[in-house]
């Protein structure tokens, strides 16, 4: 009667075994989800932050280095038996602050209970000893060391830039996938432009840990770990002494100083006034300091050498002269009678003691009517009987020459946010006049560097370098050596030639020598042991005082330094700007300045509101 029942029991046993094996096959072989879950359970990736590259000056002096800083990370899921009172005690927080911290933590976009998220940043080294002793009491919290920027001097803040936590907007734009929330990134200056060299490469260490988060050795004995690769050191072209001296002179003024080594395009000093202390934008109080600095009405974060656009003023007359010579509409001996208020219906006036100058004299005395006449010859050469077409053809030529000086477009310096200035073209006037015709009499104010022309101080320094080089320039740059190679980016060794024959620059050089020796810049611009070539300029700002502008280079033969100086609202170029330029040249060429009265004069002048 019980036959078959033993088979039933055996079948049930085997059936259960088969069901189990099928189920096991599903979860072990077919479903890969469990493998990932297991990894996220037991393997924690620890980021090994690389050391950011150092920044040095041209003589190897350290400007920017790194100091250690500590963050507190949280893996929320692992937080157990959290003693908030004790936490507040160890981390010097009030219960209210702690509550806000947790609230903010959960509000973050990348927040996840199982991944390390930054909870507190920038624990100072003082807190750190106490925290390190007690961190074991807070499971789920981990200390993450990273380094932060520190500065040897308070100089060149806008050129060097600063480093701070990557913003949400930048993170969204980032396509490299390198950055994540909480990472630091160069925000301006060299720090931003050379970010890819400075940042180095992050490493990852995979650590095994048990259910309580206690480390249990490395995963696969570290076979898939990667070491961080330190960022490359950067050697800037800056001469730290000259830079500091420039900032000293610029104290209390608004404007810029740029000094370039003409033969190489290396920027020796780049001062933007007013500036800020770079140490304010690092460490614990970054946020509050940043608000302070960016709300300052003097705009210390505005990098004037590249971003402030001015009308070029009288300095532009040298460029006009070069273009006119090249176009053969004048010779060095061409004379124009200066009839003062008579030109162009009495609009173009003049100043100083001269009546009938040749080209050198006109430059030396900055004669307005002369250059009005020169531009007229250039734009109206009579190639067309129609005065409108004639001007258009002339302006096209003129524009081409001007752009070859690096005007009207960003030069391409190795800093972000460079402005390009403006050199008017026929297309520009077509737009400006809305299709109505225009001719020379409409646009003549560009002759003396007023009107629609715009330049940035960097372009003017570069212009001085072009004259010093007799017709070419290398794009001004701030970095002369990246990492081991010790070479700048390749584009910073290319020569850019102007459309002007080299020989015409001798005339400009002679005239500029005259400016300093006997012309507008003679008293404050002149140096005893070296021939300085310079040109003053005044940018009009009715009703406020003019911007004082001066460009110069020295020595005349085999020039070592080309300078442009802008001092806002400080009057004629011969005063503040010429003084500062000559002091910079003196300092760079001789290592010291021997004219205390000029330095006194510069330091006395305060032109900030």
């Amino acid at each position, binding site marked *: 009667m019980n036959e078959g029942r033993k088979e039933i029991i055996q079948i049930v046993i085997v059936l259960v075994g088969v069901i189990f094996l099928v*189920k096991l096959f599903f979860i072990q072989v077919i479903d890969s989800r469990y493998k990932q879950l297991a990894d996220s359970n037991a393997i924690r990736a620890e980021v090994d932050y690389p050391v950011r590259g150092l920044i040095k000056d041209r003589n190897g002096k350290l400007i920017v280095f790194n100091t250690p800083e500590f963050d507190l990370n949280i893996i929320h899921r692992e937080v157990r038996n959290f003693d908030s009172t004790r936490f507040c005690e160890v981390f010097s927080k009030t219960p209210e602050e702690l509550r806000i911290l947790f609230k903010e933590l959960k509000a973050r976009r990348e927040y996840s209970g199982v991944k390390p998220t930054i909870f507190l940043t920038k624990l100072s080294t003082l807190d750190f000893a106490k925290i390190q002793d007690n961190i074991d009491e807070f499971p789920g919290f981990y200390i993450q060391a990273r380094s932060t920027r520190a500065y040897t001097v308070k100089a060149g803040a806008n050129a060097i830039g600063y480093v701070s936590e990557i913003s949400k907007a930048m993170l969204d734009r980032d396509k490299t996938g390198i950055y994540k929330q909480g990472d630091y990134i160069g925000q301006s200056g060299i720090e931003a432009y050379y970010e890819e060299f400075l940042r180095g490469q992050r490493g990852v260490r995979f650590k095994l840990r048990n*259910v309580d988060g206690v480390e249990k050795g490395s995963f696969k004995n570290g076979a898939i770990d990667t070491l961080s690769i330190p960022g490359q050191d950067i050697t800037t072209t800056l001469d730290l002494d000259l830079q500091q001296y420039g900032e000293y002179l610029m104290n209390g003024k608004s404007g810029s100083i740029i000094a370039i080594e003409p033969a190489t395009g290396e920027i020796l000093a780049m001062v933007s006034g007013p500036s800020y202390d770079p140490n304010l934008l690092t460490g614990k109080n970054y946020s509050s300091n940043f608000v302070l600095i960016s709300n300052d009405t003097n705009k210390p974060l505005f990098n004037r050498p590249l971003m402030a656009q001015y009308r070029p003023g009288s300095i532009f007359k040298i460029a006009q002269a070069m273009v006119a010579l090249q176009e053969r509409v004048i010779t060095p001996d061409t004379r124009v009678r200066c009839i003062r208020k008579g030109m162009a219906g009495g609009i173009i006036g003049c100043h100083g003691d001269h009546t009938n100058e040749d080209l050198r004299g006109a430059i030396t005395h900055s004669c307005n009517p002369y250059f009005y006449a020169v531009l007229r010859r250039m734009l109206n050469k009579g190639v067309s009987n129609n005065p409108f077409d004639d001007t258009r053809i002339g302006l096209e030529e003129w524009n081409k020459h001007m752009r070859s000086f690096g005007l009207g477009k960003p030069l391409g310096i190795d800093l972000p946010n460079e402005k390009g200035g403006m050199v008017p073209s026929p297309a520009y006037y077509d737009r400006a006049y809305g299709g109505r015709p225009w001719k020379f009499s409409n646009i003549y104010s560009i002759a003396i560097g007023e009107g629609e022309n715009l330049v940035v101080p960097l372009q003017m320094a570069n212009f001085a370098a072009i004259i010093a080089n007799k017709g070419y320039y290398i794009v001004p740059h701030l970095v002369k050596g990246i990492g081991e190679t010790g070479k700048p980016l390749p584009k910073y060794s290319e020569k850019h030639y102007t459309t002007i024959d080299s020989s015409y620059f001798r005339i400009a050089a002679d005239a500029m020598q005259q400016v300093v020796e006997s012309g507008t810049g003679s008293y404050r611009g002149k140096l005893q042991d070296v021939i300085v070539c310079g040109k003053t300029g005044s940018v009009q700002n009715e009703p406020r005082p003019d911007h004082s502008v001066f460009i110069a280079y020295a020595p005349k033969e085999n020039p070592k330094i080309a300078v442009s100086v802008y001092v806002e609202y400080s009057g004629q170029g011969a005063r503040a700007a010429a003084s500062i330029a000559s002091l910079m040249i003196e300092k760079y060429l001789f290592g010291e300045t021997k004219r205390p009265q000029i330095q006194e004069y510069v330091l006395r002048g305060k032109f900030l509101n």
Partner: protein
Amino acid sequence: MRNQEVISYKMDWITVALYATIVFLGWLNIYAVTYDQTTDLSIFNLQINSGRQLLFIAGAIIIIMGILIMDMRFYETFAYVIYGFIMFLLLLVPVIGKEVGGNKAWLGIGSFGVQPSEFAKFATALAVAKFMGSVGFKMDQLRNQVILFITIGIPMVLILLQKDTGTALVFTVFTLVFFREGMSPLLIIMGIIAAVIFILTLLVNEFYLYGAIATLLMSAIILGKKKWKRIAYLCAGAMLICTVIASVDYVVTDVLKPHQQNRVKALINPDADPLGFGWNVTQSKIAIGSGGFTGKGFLKGTQTKFDFVPEQSTDFIFCTIGEEHGWLGSLFTMTLFIGLMLRVIFLAERQKNRFARVYGYSVACIFFFHFAINIGMTIGLFPVIGIPLPFFSYGGSGLWGFTILLFILLKLDIHRSQVLQRM
């Protein structure tokens, strides 16, 4: 000398080999669980479970010798005495027992403790076998059935008093033995139906179930013969099922303890609270699932080793197999167990008397229950019921209890031709 020759000649070495392999693999896996690459303790170290398990294995060998030396008639003759003695110990547990891990299931002598519940299994098997093997026993007599259910009911109740639901449930597997010996399968079928309805009620809204039952009832009445007696039976059955459904909610919320409710809920939807009541099953499945086809390799598991899986060396020992040896390792282990169970049934079937055969079936069925519930639990097919995997899980009482269970059968098997036939 003569006796030993008989033993070695007639011993079923296949069973012994299966037993030894499973015990050995269990020991290795207990080591794998405790292994910590930062401390790197030896497998023999007595500070860790694997070292202690080796002592238990040594104890088991002594027990085996004792069982084999004992006269084979002892077990049948003293079956009720042994049963009575163990029941007495079980009674003592709530009074003088010590509590370990929330369960008061241990009797301690100094630092040494045993769980009488582990020994109640073989004692009950002996008692059941003796009763069914007695002269003139007829399975279809109601009186006999009542006595049998009381025999398995006593240890169940006593163990339930220790709050060890898992071990208590093991005794229900004797119904399978009764079935083999001629009891109507109705009871088992009804039990299974009740369990299925129970689970369905938790999964599906009860009103759908009522609707389904009503539909089935209507179609059965319409399609079948229209006899009043048949219709009455069908209606009674339907009413019964509806009563079960209605009672499930009551059982789940009022009878089951919160942790038991959670285990049932976790079975149905482990993802509902993976860090709460679903933790055990979730982590267990992660560990097994991460093993893949061939596993991570011996001592290379991360989930079991780093305490993600609870009770790893005891109830969840199978996770280590799944994680470190993958599907192939699971296949091999299950083959060993199924082989052992089928071999035990084979041994049971070749016994000449009913006592030995019933005992043999009891052994097979107890192994089966443990095997099915334990592995089913680790892979999420059964609720978390804390019972060990025979010979595999860490623990002296368990190992010894199962060893006694198995080797009494082997002893009986050696002498199977000596007994009078009393079929």
